[in-house]
């Protein structure tokens, strides 16, 4: 009976299988590298704001404490941004004529809220609580980096789940003081800590 396939078909098939296996592996590895890279998570790209607020000036040069503005970081899930009234505490007297601060004065006059562009956003299925992290001794710079040296705030960490778990699996390695009692470690990698 005549063969349907010529002998070279075997070689061709093996080459196709090998190259598709290699291509698949390449896709997987490339994808893996891309997804774990900083730029994929917007790490390092500064975000422009409606008012060019500089943390370098306020938190760096003037030495203001983070909590003066982000006042609910110790008690609530969100750290919050300062109300316009908080900004006006100084800016009703300082830099009053600056055109960059016009949105502040407008908001104070009308009561209209001021919208800032978010730099750190976690997906909806994650519930993050600032208060408990601060209570356990996690410093602001641990996750947000050297904000007091940033003229425009940018992400310095990916804030991916694996990055969170790096600490949650072994907090003692990351925290300066031993503020987490050992017997509580079992809880920190429960799904229900962050996802409920």
């Amino acid at each position, binding site marked *: 009976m005549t063969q349907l396939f010529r002998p070279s078909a075997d070689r061709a098939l093996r080459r196709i299988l090998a190259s598709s296996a290699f291509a698949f592996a390449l896709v997987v590895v490339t994808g893996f590298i891309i997804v774990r890279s900083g730029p994929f998570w917007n790490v390092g790209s500064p975000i422009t704001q409606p008012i060019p607020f500089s943390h370098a000036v306020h938190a760096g040069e003037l030495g203001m404490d983070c909590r003066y503005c982000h006042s609910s970081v110790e008690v*609530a899930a969100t750290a919050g941004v300062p109300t*316009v009234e908080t900004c006006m505490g100084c800016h009703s007297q300082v830099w009053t004529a600056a055109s960059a601060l016009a949105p502040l004065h407008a908001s104070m006059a009308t009561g209209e809220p*001021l919208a800032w*562009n978010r730099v750190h*956003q976690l*997906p909806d299925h994650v*519930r993050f609580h600032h208060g408990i992290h601060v209570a356990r001794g996690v410093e602001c710079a641990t996750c947000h980096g050297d904000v007091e040296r940033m003229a425009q705030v940018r992400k310095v960490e990916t804030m991916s789940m694996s990055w969170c778990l790096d600490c949650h699996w072994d907090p003692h390695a990351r925290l300066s003081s031993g503020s987490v009692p050992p017997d509580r470690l079992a*809880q920190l990698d*429960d799904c*229900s800590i962050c996802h409920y």
Partner: protein
Amino acid sequence: MPSERYHPDLQSLGSALAGGDGPRFWRSLEQLAASPDAMRFLEREFPHLGEATRTDRRTLLKLLGASLALAGLTGCEEAPTRPIVARARSVPDHAPGRPLHVATTLMQDGYGLGILVESHGGRPVKIEGNPLHPASLGATDAFAQAEILTLHDPDRSSLIRQEGTPRTRAELARMLDALALEMEGRGGAGLRLLTGPTSSPTFIALTAALSERFPEARWHRHAPALSDTPYQGARLAFGQPLETRLDLSRAEVILALDADFLSQGPGWIAHAAAFAARRDPAGSMNRLYVAEPCPTPTGTRADHRLPLAPDEILHLAADLGAALGVSAPSGGEPHPIVPVLAEDLRRAGPGALVVAGPRLPAGIHALVHVINGRLGAIGSTVVHTAPVLPVPDPDSLAALAEDMAAGTATHLLILDANPVYDAPAGLEFAERLARLPFSLHLGLYEDETAAGCRWHVPMAHALECWGDARAYDGTASLMQPVRTPRAGRLSALELIASLAGQEADGQALVRERWRAERGETGFEAFWTQVLHDGVVAGTAFAPQPVQPAPPPPVNPAGAGEGLRVAFAPDPAVWDGRYAGNAWLQELPRPLSKLVWGNAVLLAPATAARFGVQNGDVVEVTLAGRTVAGPVFVMPGHAPDTATLPLGYGRWRAGFVGSGVGFSAYALRGGEAMWHGTGATLRRSGARDPLVTTQDHHAMADRAVVRAATLAEFRENPDFARAAVEERSSFYPEYQYEGHAWGMAIDLDACLGCNACMVACQAENNVPVVGREEVAIGREMHWLRVDRYFEGPPDDPVVHFQPMLCMHCEKAPCEVVCPVNATVHDSEGLNVMVYNRCIGTRYCSNNCPYKVRRFNWFDYAGRGGGAPVEVYNPDVTVRERGVMEKCTYCVQRISAARIEAKREGRPVRDGEVRTACQQACPTRAITFGDLNAPDSAVTARKRSPRNYGVLADLNTQPRTTYLARVGNPNPDVPKRRDGGGS
């Protein structure tokens, strides 16, 4: 959906049950008869699957391949970055991100219920009871829980309209000024005010100011769900109308005559709490006798229940009075229970209590006052105080309608009432209203009455306006806004004030009125204290010493030919005001488990006599008026009586409520507001399939409910724990070093009131699925209250059992999830991780309790879900394709744990309360830390009555139940067929 007619042989069913053959607990007649519909729900959790589409194998494989290929792409949608919005002004003493709790009051049929409202960022999301308020004691009812949805309802009106044209607030003010000027000219002749019932001291003071300015103006009251006979009965007995206040904490033997005092009426939460507190099988147990035509939650708590028609109840009252020597007998054959009942009440003395329901005629109320006086109950279990509501003139609405027809009432203001829909039939209210030169309607919705009035003004909801109210015992409390109302919305106070010539500022009006009462000194401190507490301390009305006069003779009209008809407000939509509230429409009614509609409730024997089954449309004719509606066969209903729930058949109730059910108001004439006789019933031949959840999520005949009498319990305290061997499991044991959460539910205390169901829905963003989806068993309630009957169909005992996720130690659902979306956490919870779930539904398949709910469609999401403002931000809103279930309110556990860790202390017992636990009036649900030896839940679980449902499956549920113990009177003659009484 019950689409096929079946014919259960009730005679043989009844005798089989009496003979001990057949299940001890059954869920419905359909289940007893093993009708095809019931069996569908028993055999498969989702019976419709596979029935709708029949595909061949090739198509199925194609579809599978396509879904696999597309499966990965659903995660590719990236959420847009949201801005962070900074407020302009800081709020003093309030950290953004933490919820605010505000104490305020809801007015229910005029009586105040104190509540605490949890508000996130200025948006109210959850209502809880106010522990300091006597009508709440920390709990709420289903209506209070659902008010959040009414507050945020997009169907609420938002525009002032005159004959349909939108008007501004200024134009309204000008119109009211012109009206006031015109009225002043003629002393107010023709000016009429029609309101619902109200106990608000400020409102009453304003109406006084109004009548000062317009002496000829009149105030009429219309309350479709309230009866005037309690006040009238008090007037007959005591010479003046008085409020009758019960004190269940001292009651040992209670007789309720057509009185659903444990789940309806002013102060019912306090009554239920006190009643449940006195039912302790290990201590002293009270005893409850109930005589009622239609089963109610109070009837289910009865140790002896008598299904009697309304006129038979009058007979019973008269015969009881005769047995106690205070009145003449009824003249008919007394019920066999009367001598034993009289003896039991007499023995209890000051611990006895006879309660007359509001729907009974005034003469019976007077008789009951005399009976209570003879027993020594007055001053002990029942006291009489000044009336909480202003006593209206009798037939207030009828008088108004007559004046409207005669032309003496020309300018009508209707505040928070809907007479075009619910006025008694025969008044022709709508026609008379249309002929008035001026009419104004103030209401939450543009409803039936708004369509009939010339002006419509949107009303501010109780949660967004200032006011005050009195509770059932007279305690005053203030109403303060939890959020500012949208522009254009007025409260009733403000409207009346502007007509009376005062400033339309709710806060100023309420302050003024209380300043007049309290005086100037220390007023600011008083004001702040009262707003903080939610109650004005020390304002309960004092009991008045009374001596009942001899009662008028009771002359119950003979039953005569024909059916008796009883009207009752619906347990979910009440008098129709909540018809537009989707949570309440989808809430299964306690006894019938009907949703999205009402039915003509008939006893099994009566239904058999007329040859009707569930879903058959019948025409009920009473006094020349006819109404058509589907039948629901209600086991335990009094024979030859039909109950028609009010509140349905609305035609302008918004997107949700219009066209649902039939209106019983069309049959309800002024001469027979609650009970009618001489009605006829006729099968019309049409079918209107009802939707009821009574057969959903059934667990066949397994002993899920356990009950015994007190004698049986004393003889065998461990009756509830059927011998369950400790079986080993190859799954590892969990070690709980921290908290180990658990729950215990007392079946003796559960009333089936459904407050827990709506509380869970509000707290956890549980979606509403609509009528068709509920019919195929897809209702999304995380917590359901199953209802079981025990005994013969015409007089069964009813048990309720709340069913929620058991958070099993050896959970069958955890081990079958292919993606590990449901896991056991280190505090004992069975956690559901929504973002991992891919919707295989294997977990739900494995769950023996059928407590898992699947999002078949995007119920909660875009287009068709609840308004976004209603959602609790602490709980994820689930998308299509994701499984959900009770989480033991993990968001509350998390918040309490974080709070405790921040403050460096352990979580206290009682600090974490699940939504269902917090809402329950009788404290049936206890939740807490099983690792704490002194926690309430550990104590409950130590009780010999404690058992786990389906424990023989070795699931080791963390939610266990306390078996029910009844306290029947051993002297009561037993029925031959082993019936409930």
